[in-house]
């Protein structure tokens, strides 16, 4: 397995931040990111996407294997050099309920978490910048 494609919720600031963090981590396996429900996702993975519905986290490997939710999160950890041990540890039968619980808690509260941490998705930031009034010039410099 050489590559994982991660479909994430681009409307969630926390998810976008996580994506940036993942991009910067040293990896064993190449990772490619695609916003869930976007035109790109519809084109690449028609059977996984429908316009309007956004899955919290989906990972597709280069053999066509699909992982959802907690499994997708564990696959992301497994791809990272410094977190592969955690992926192996959390995926043990005894600890899977803990992994599921942790993922469910973070995922269902991701909008709140984004709010608390002040994280915005890039699309929202772009929209705000477009609508904002540009600062006015103070006038020509005094002689």
């Amino acid at each position, binding site marked *: *397995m050489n*590559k994982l*494609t991660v479909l994430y919720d681009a409307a969630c600031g926390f998810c976008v931040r996580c994506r940036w963090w993942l991009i910067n981590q040293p990896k*064993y396996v190449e990772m490619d990111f695609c916003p869930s429900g976007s035109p790109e996702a519809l084109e*690449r*993975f028609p*059977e*996984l996407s429908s316009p309007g519905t956004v899955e919290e986290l989906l990972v*597709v*490997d*280069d*053999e*066509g*294997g*699909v*992982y*959802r939710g907690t*499994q997708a999160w*564990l*696959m992301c950890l*497994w791809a990272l050099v410094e977190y*592969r*041990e955690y*992926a*192996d540890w*959390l*995926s043990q039968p005894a600890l899977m309920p803990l992994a599921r619980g942790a993922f469910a808690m973070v995922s269902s509260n991701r909008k709140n978490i984004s709010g608390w941490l002040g994280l915005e998705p890039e699309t929202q930031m772009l929209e705000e910048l477009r609508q904002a009034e540009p600062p006015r010039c103070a006038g020509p410099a005094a002689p």
Partner: protein
Amino acid sequence: MNTTLLQGAAVNATIWAYITYMIASVALTVWVAHTLHKNGRVFLVDSFLGNEVLADSVNHLLVVGFYLINVGFVSLALKYGVKPRDTVEGIEFFSTKMGMVLLVLGAMHFMNLYVFAKMRRRALLKHAPPPVKPEGYLAAKKV
């Protein structure tokens, strides 16, 4: 005359104590180094994924380092402490010094084992399979 005899006997005891200590310490160092060299090889070959030439090279280098540190410590530790003047003090000197040397050898031994285990674990991690199985597969293989 009496004093000279006593002094002579003291020097004798000191010399014998020193000689016994050096011989026993060096012999023990050689034995522990041999054990690590022989039994640590399996760990190293596994860590280097069957590359026996590399494993042998690293093994030899580790043994050299081991000898340097231990024989160095043993030699330095000879002088410190009470100079034995008679047989009783000689035995006490020997047992104290040997105790110290054995504890240091033991610590080095466990440190070596820890280093071997860590190298092996890191090497195995790189080739670890994914922690979870996919939920399903895409109909057509798409990357």
